[in-house]
């Protein structure tokens, strides 16, 4: 079943800045799709377009055959980069994870047994049980990342989008996230994830897409790893850190 369909997607931030140009891809359920590319290549823009956070300049994004904003609440779980929020906000780990249930709840409904179970399961899956009452400002970067992933899991999404969840996390957190992603995919969840970790891509993903404002390569990780476009990106990323190409 096709979970995500992107066709001829163009996203322009201004007349001079084109983030994505003519991107076409599909994602099936039970598949983990990795999106790699240099900084500023449009990886996060692609993810945000699928999440319905960015309106395409042209082209089409459909999630489960509907435009993202027309989906039922809670359908898309989005895990942003951890620096996107204020971690001094008055909330414990459990409070943040419980927010994942908000889109699934009616206006005045209380937390029911299923909501509590979803939160507890998410906390347990990310090994956050002992930290549940801790204020979020007291967490390490890896723990903050796990809290965000737990919030997305508590939401019980039909599609999971992760924006560089392994950046700056410790090895233990990375292994946990890898195990969770593979487990969710095995259960049939479609996952899109941006990453800079090119070397471990075959362990994480069933398919790999190389993006540099447009799709440069799309296929199984081994094939993409062996492709010239990947090597060029890799060389550029390692020597310059990022590119500034604008089509």
């Amino acid at each position, binding site marked *: 079943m096709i979970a995500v369909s992107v066709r001829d997607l163009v996203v322009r931030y201004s007349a001079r800045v084109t983030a994505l140009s003519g991107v076409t891809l599909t994602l099936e359920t039970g598949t983990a799709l990795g999106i790699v590319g240099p900084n500023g290549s449009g990886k996060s823009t692609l993810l945000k377009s699928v999440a*319905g956070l960015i309106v395409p300049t042209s082209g089409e994004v459909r999630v489960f055959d509907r435009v993202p904003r027309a989906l039922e609440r809670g359908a898309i779980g989005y895990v942003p980069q951890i620096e996107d929020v204020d971690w001094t906000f008055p909330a414990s780990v459990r*409070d943040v994870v419980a*927010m994942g249930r908000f889109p699934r709840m009616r206006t*005045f409904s209380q937390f029911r047994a299923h909501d509590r179970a979803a939160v507890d399961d998410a906390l347990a899956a990310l090994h956050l049980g002992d930290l549940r009452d801790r204020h979020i400002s007291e967490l390490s970067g890896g723990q903050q990342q796990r809290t965000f992933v737990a919030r997305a899991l508590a939401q019980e999404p039909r599609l999971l989008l992760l924006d560089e969840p392994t950046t700056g996390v410790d090895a233990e957190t990375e292994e946990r996230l890898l195990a969770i992603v593979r487990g969710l995919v095995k259960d049939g969840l479609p996952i899109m994830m941006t990453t800079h970790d090119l070397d471990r891509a075959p362990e994480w993903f069933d398919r790999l897409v190389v993006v540099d404002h447009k799709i440069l390569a799309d296929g199984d990780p081994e094939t993409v790893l062996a492709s010239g476009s990947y090597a060029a990106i890799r060389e550029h990323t390692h020597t310059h850190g990022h590119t500034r190409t604008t089509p």
Partner: protein
Amino acid sequence: MDALTAPFTFEFMQRAFVAALIVGALCSTMGTYVVLRKLSFIGDGIAHASFAGIVIAYLRGFNYAFGAAVVAVITALGIGFVHRRGKISLDTTIGVLFTGAFAVGIFLMSRSQRYSVDLEGFLFGNILGVSRDDLVVVCVLAAIVVLCVAVLYRPLLYTSFDPVVAQASGINAAFVDYVLLVLLALTIIISLQSVGIVLVAALLVTPAAAAAQLTRRFVPMLVLSGVIGTFCSVGGLYLSYYLSSASGATIVILATLIFFAALAFRRRSA
């Protein structure tokens, strides 16, 4: 005991206490969102902008509070619109729109030969002058604000912490932002008669800022802010009665003292 009940022997003081109670609780509860969303400037901005509505109402001969409310709501929606569509920072947007609206008020006032509204009352408040009709308006507007906050409790909380993810999960963050701005505009209008344009920002920000020093959880902060705001409003009114001081200023000074006490308590606890 007599000291506590003495002010209530006057009917105008009874109305003032009811107004203080409502304004204190409402401002400080809404202030929690103001502080968490880093919107401290908005109280000042909308309060000043409402001045244009007061002048227009005077010149056209209708209720001042109504005129202030209309301009405050329009300014609040304008702030949200320009901020979102123009991709301009919120503080810059507030600065531009509030000074613009305030200038319109001054301009219209300067063009009128007959303008004689008690400007000092609007600048610094006159809670002792709250009439029975004013109180009805305060109660109705406060009830609307409380109802909306209750209905939008979860979306408001989620969008205050992480608006991007809230939006991705299907919550209409833009709608929630606009509603919050309108509710803040109504709250500010409700408070104008009590503490005035100059001090309303303090009543929005200071109790919530004090509560933030004492707790690191959202619901306790919301409750504590409401308690501090109510205490300051009622306590400040008592003090102003016995000190023969301006009620709005006394309320804000008390809130400021409580903020520093809370700050000292937090530093000591740490």
